Structures are given as C-alpha cells and as structure tokens.
C-alpha cells in the first residue's frame, strides 16, 4: 500500500508529491499486473484449509479476516450418492472460477466436495435479489422424480441473506 500521492504543484503538503502523472502511474500498474501469477490464499504450511467467511451484508461493521479450519472428518462414511445426505457434511475442496475447465457458462462452475472429491455444479447469481435462486430451486424440487435421470439432482441452496447460489449434481456428457 502506498501513501496517497498528490500530483501537481497545487497539491497540499498532506499529499505525497509525485513527479509523474496519474495516467503514467496507471500505465505502469497495468503493465505490472499483466504478467503477474496468481497468488492463492494459503494456510502457510499449517494443516487445514483457508476459509473465507462472509461479511454481514446488512451492516457496515468490521468484516471478518480469513480463517484456517481443519479438514472435515476423514472417517465419515458417505451415504449412497442417490440420497445426497452425505453432502451435508462436505466442504468445498477448491473453487477456482477463473479456470476455463471449471466454467460452465456465465453463472455455473464445477467444484469439488471434500472428503470424497465429488464434482458438483455451483450456480451463482450476483444480484442481491434472490428471486431467481428461489425460482430455480423450486423448479428443481418439483422435478424431484426426474433427478438423476432427466435433470441433475438438486443438492442445496444457500440460506444467507443476499447470497444467491444453488448446488446441483454434476453430469458429464461424453462428446459424440
């Protein structure tokens, strides 16, 4: 983080003088950004995984910091996949929406669940309005007799305020 620069001779002394112009600074930053590698959040060698908690969307109070959590219990016996109850104790292995192999259109991504590393589909809407999420979840529930045959099985929907995502069974369609 830099101090705040003031550009130009009229800048008050509280600004740090910079002899370059702001467009030059942005030009430099856009070059710097271009080739930088990803910098994933890590546990820095500690066991567990990085957990990024939500901030409270209804208040402007202090947001949380990242947490390092221990992995889910490894001795848990998963229930048959058809029942999907075993998802209840699962955690996400990695959600990497920037990888093309994980992208399924504009709103959906492939993610994996731990501990069984099962692929599922995460569908997410960015808007605060949760109408679309509820409509989609309702539609999938009405189609429950067809889950796993004609339509993907519905796994879960979020219940957080302003959060709009659902999880669906991942079905791999072979290329013909």
């Amino acid at each position, binding site marked *: 983080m830099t*101090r705040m620069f003031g550009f130009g001779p009229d800048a008050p002394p509280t*600004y740090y003088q910079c002899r370059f112009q702001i467009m030059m600074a942005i030009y430099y930053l856009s*070059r*710097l950004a*271009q080739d930088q590698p990803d910098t994933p959040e890590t546990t820095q060698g500690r066991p567990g995984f990085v957990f990024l908690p939500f*901030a409270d969307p209804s208040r402007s109070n202090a947001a949380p910091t990242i947490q390092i959590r221990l992995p889910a219990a490894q001795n848990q016996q998963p229930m048959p996949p058809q029942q999907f109850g075993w998802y*209840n*104790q699962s955690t996400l292995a990695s959600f*990497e*929406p920037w990888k093309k192999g994980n992208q399924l259109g504009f709103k959906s991504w492939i993610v994996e669940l731990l501990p069984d590393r099962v692929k599922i589909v995460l569908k997410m809407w960015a808007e605060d309005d949760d109408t679309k999420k509820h409509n989609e979840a309702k539609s999938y529930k009405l189609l429950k007799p067809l889950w796993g045959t004609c339509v993907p099985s519905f796994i879960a929907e979020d219940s957080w305020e302003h959060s709009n995502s659902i999880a669906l069974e991942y079905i791999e369609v072979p290329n013909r």
Partner: protein
Amino acid sequence: MFQIPVPVNVNVAVAFDLARGNVLATPLPPVRDALHTATSVTTSRYRLRWNRLSQWATFEDDMNNYFTNNVTAADIAALVMNFSGLQQLWNAVNESHIRTEAQIKLRFLIYVKEVHNIVANGMYGAPPPEDVHSSIVEVDSGSGSHGLVGVSDFALRNDLKGRITVVGEVKNPRKVTPEQIDQVIDGYPNYLLSLIIKEQRHSPENTMAVLQSSNSMVTWFAMPKRLASLLLCVDFASPIALMALSCL
C-alpha cells in the same frame, strides 16, 4: 420535405497527431465538488479484512525505473491519438459537478479508461506499445462479467488470457484523505479505511458462499487469485491523488 444529411463515414483511417508520452503526461481534467447527496458505505458480503498490510514505499522509484528502463523511446514517441479526440474526452469531464461516488466512477470510465486503453492497448487503431498491458474494463453484472461473481467499479484484464488481474474501486478523495491512509500504514486502525481495504481484499473472484441443505451447513470457499488490488482515489480537481494498494 426534410433532406437527410449525408452521414459521416467515421470508420476511416485517421492520422494521429499526439504521442503516447504526451497523452500520459496530460493531467486529468478538473471537476467541481458539488453537494454530496449520498454517502458510500460498503456493506458487500464479499468484503474481508487484510491479514497483513505493508507500505509500498518504492512505488515512485519502481515507476521511474519502468519508464527509464522498460519503456522504449519509440513507444513514447509513437502517435496514438488525435489532439481533438483527447480534448473531447477531457471536455466531457472538465468542470462537471460531482455529487456521488457513482459520478466519479462515470468520469473515470469516460476519461481514464478510454485514454488508458488507447495508449496502453492500441484501442481505436492506435499502435500498441511493445510491452503488453492489461486493459481497463467496466464490471457490471457480476457473474457473467469477466468471470467475476461480485461487482467492482472497474477491473484490469489480461486480454490474452481473459483473466482479471486487478479489481478496482473508485473512491471520493474528500472522504478518503492522505491522513487516513497514513494511519492505516502506520498501524492505527481507522474504521473508514479499514472498510475500504476489506472491500479490496475480498475481491469478486475471492468469492465464497455458504449453502445449507436440510439442517447441515455446506461450506464453500474460494482461493483468491489477485495480484493486487488497486484503489484509486481519483480527484479530478487539483490535486489529483492516486493511492495504490498492493495485495500481499
């Protein structure tokens, strides 16, 4: 009967008359500080506090090294746009009244985004520089927009890889002051600034959500991939201020 005038063919080659170096050295147009009609308080669910933050003390030296050793004389001298074009963009912002942060963002997109992308990315037929730059892109609808889930004011994008490299927020410089930035760097917690920093840290791609199925929580998290978050406090009036945040 009204005779329709002959339309202008705007898609013709234009001889540029303004060099890249001159465009970059041009100060931003000033705006007027009107009565503020809204306060900007971030309540995004994506904000998250930085675990560690340190000063980027060599920023100006780094920039100097870049322009001295990396930017070629040919790139500086290359003609990239017309004076009249630059002047029109400049006039579109000049002396306009700013009441809200959204209006600052609009001016940023009109002038900074357009001029940067012409100079750095060869937009509108300008010869691109020898070194490749990320372009400034507008972020609007979230998940369909550049693969992001949240919405930031703008972003920088590696157009070759289709990868967002920086997320950016435009802030009102009258509400984010040099003293407040100093306090953050010097380790004094500042409520206003910490909010902004959280917003930057938890960039849209660092998205996470918590899903609930029956009575058990299914937790989702994401790894951030950002190089850096850039916080621009663009004061189009004098002094023009830039603050850059480096993500650790």
